[in-house]
């Protein structure tokens, strides 16, 4: 089936099997490998992308469901080489270790901050519960999101 998707501002037209998952279109067809696959069941959040402004798990969405829509992946978050405040926060606060959950975690956190400019620590912890991290114990991730929130409010 023909699928037309805008990814990070670029238009892509591909002919894919109807059962192709969005994450496989992004990774294997388009070649943007920053979006990761950790569980294939929507539980770990490594595959999180932003679809029409909403953070979704791309491992359980068909590519055809994203037809005609806009996707932002981790590769599209920085603006002209300038890191997004959430990316910057993760770097500043050591919000990552192995980095595998990080793209999804960053995109979830970005959406959280778009919905709530000044989240409490509890709101951040709840807000990222759909993304699993095995390395950090989450504390530096919380710090990173708070750093970004402050920066985005400034």
């Amino acid at each position, binding site marked *: 089936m023909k699928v037309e998707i805008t990814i990070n501002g670029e238009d892509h037209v591909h002919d894919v*099997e109807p*059962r*192709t998952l969005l994450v*496989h279109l992004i*990774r*294997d067809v388009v*070649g*943007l*490998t*920053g*979006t*990761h*696959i*950790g*569980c*294939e*069941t929507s*539980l*770990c959040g*490594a595959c999180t992308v932003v679809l029409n402004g909403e953070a979704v798990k791309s491992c359980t969405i068909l590519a055809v469901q994203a037809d005609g829509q806009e996707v932002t*992946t*981790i*590769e599209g*978050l*920085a603006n002209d080489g300038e*890191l997004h405040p959430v*990316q910057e926060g*993760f*770097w*500043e606060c*050591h919000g*990552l*270790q*192995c*980095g*595998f*959950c*990080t*793209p999804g975690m*960053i995109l979830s956190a970005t959406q959280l901050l778009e919905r709530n400019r000044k989240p409490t*620590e*509890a709101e*951040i*912890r*709840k807000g*990222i*519960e759909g*993304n*699993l*991290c*095995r*390395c*950090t*114990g*989450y*504390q*530096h*991730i*919380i710090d990173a999101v708070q750093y970004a929130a402050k920066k985005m409010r400034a």
Partner: protein
Amino acid sequence: MPVSKSVGARIKRREDPRLIQGLATYVDDIQMPGMCYVTFVRSPYAHAIIKSIDASAATDLEGVVAVITGEDVKDVGGVPCAATDFPNVQVPHHPVLATGKVRFVGEPVAAIVATKRYTAHDAVDLVEVDYDPLEAVASGEAALKDDAVKIHDTDTNLAFTWDLEGGDVEGALKSADRVVKERFVHQRLAPNPIEPRGVAADYNAGDDQLTLWSSTQIPHILRTQIGLMLGIPENRVRVIAPEVGGGFGCKLNVYAEEAVLGFLARKLRRPVKWMEGRRESFLHTIHGRDQVGDVEVAVQNDGTITALKYTVVADMGAYYQLLSPAIPTLTGLMLCGCYRFKNVAMHLRAAFTNKMATDAYRGAGRPEATYMVERIVDCVADELGVDPLEIRRKNFIANDAFPYETGTGLAYDSGNYTGALDKALKMADYDGLRKKQAEMREQGRYLGIGLSTYAEICGMGPSTAMPAGGWESGTVRVDPTGKVTVLTGIKPHGQGQETTFAQLIADGLGVEVDDVKILHGDTDTVQYGTGTFGSRGTAVGGTAMIMAMEKVKAKVKRIAAHLLEANADDIELKDNRYIVRGHPEQGVSLTDVSLHSHRGINLPPDTEPGLAEAHFFEPTNFTFPFGTHIAVVEIDANTGEIDIQRYVAVDDVGNIINPMIVEGQIHGGIAQGLGQALYEEVIYDESGQMMTGSFMDYALPKAHNFPRFELDNTVTPSPVNPMGVKGVGEAGTIGSTPAIVNAVVDALKPFGVRNIDMPLRPEKLWRLMNGGASS
């Protein structure tokens, strides 16, 4: 405080720009022209005879390139185990694809190669395997009963035995004022790095060269083993561990899939790739723990513990993986914890069961020791009616007793156990907490305070004490223009050594952190190495690099002295310049020296041109980090839910190179330790079926499960290496599990609770608080 310009500073990680922008390359990101995808057909039975395999429908599927079974790989060597020197040992052949029989759910039976990812998955269902199911045994203790079904074609499921004895345990037990006993279950855990395992392989027939990309912690060991398994010269194998998305010990191994992918790439002369799914990860990536042990301690009325005896059954699973048998022996070595137990014994029986192998998972044997010791100390306090703090103080190894030889024959390098304890008590306001607890109990509320004063064994390790070499290698290379490249035999996968090693080099050689590049994980680039595990990366790998750097520095000083017409002994490094002592105006930079050395003329006599040195570092001992963790919990009597109100951790990991990275390691370690205490458990039912094969059924901790961890540290340098570091990878995991369980048991004391098996699910607690039986 920085101890110098870079070392000791909170420097942002140099790994991060690629990771936060999606620019890193993990195994699944590798694409090659003509690459095929591999999937595995796995056993749905825990124990069965394979009567026949019909792969014709799969082979006929369009896009399927090949289907192979055990028959096709019968010449491939078995999955290796490096630790088999034990009494009464059985070492069963561990085929890369099952032949004749399957012995656990998830065991690979056939491999499919297809041109497309989805086709390879479709074909799995088309391979018809006719099984004749057999009775299965799914617990270590059950497997050791005489009438248990036998897993290998022998008359016992006993895998091996191991006994450790120091002092006179039986005598001390006989003469004790009392003997305190308890049984502890260390449940089976799944490591679950968020990146599952994955392998890609490519064979270049022209060069007779096999390249294997694997998400591994041990690229060099893997290369040696793949060469042996496939029967090809080691120098015809190149292993690349690209970006690795977490390991926690489960990627410290050699797996069947790695050999099969190498075999397929050579046979088909096409690049191939396999990525493990999460379900496969639960089934066929090693598990951790799975020990059941009975402990007895001899106690005097004043609280002195004079002996400890631990009788354990360890569940190996159906086959050994690389280090399976060695793991419970690490439990044995750490039986003393941070205490003066001179009479200690461990009697271990290891059993084969119809389950996946157990092996090294973060802590690897030491969490079991620490949990058992820290829990039994609390039980002793309970029986004597004293605060658990008193028993700890009474039995601590004294601060002036280091180096200290333990009852298990180890020499603890350095320690200050009361220092960490006192600091943690103060941070937590221990006395205040006890008062609050008493007040809350009056109100019918259940506050619990749990202590864990742990010591652990890290920096692995001396080669004499390891199943294979315990040394590490480092090469320091200065480019002609003065930039530095380091080759290290370790394989960081989240630990941040691209940053901390650069900090050490920057200070040591007089360059900026950004002038240093750390290379690792490619066996064609880096000299041999041992890898990243056992909290050894910096303590052993870092030391190898430092030693190599010192050799470079000595040469730089010789050349600088020659250029400055001074004596090499008078050259010192100041503000990134090599100056003549007392004459800062007379100096040269590393770039000046390196350019000169690479130009190759006018060098001091007997000096080789170029500027690179290597060092293979053999540590003389392990290192022994320690600390005190304090957990404060409140249990809701209506729901059994645990509210972790505070978590205080004071860890001593020796000198600290980058405090931010050390905090991150401790945080992550605590989270995994709490995961064991509260949430995680791999469950096989009696027939050996995996009941927890997804994140729906196996609870990995989430962000909202934890409070903010309150951290501090004491610094007791290790004398084992010149940096005085001890290692920090596993401390948090080892220290945290007993703290939280002690806190919960403490909270439930009014209900007569003395022990609860992990994980501490709310239902268990609710039952205990509402008249149910203890689990």
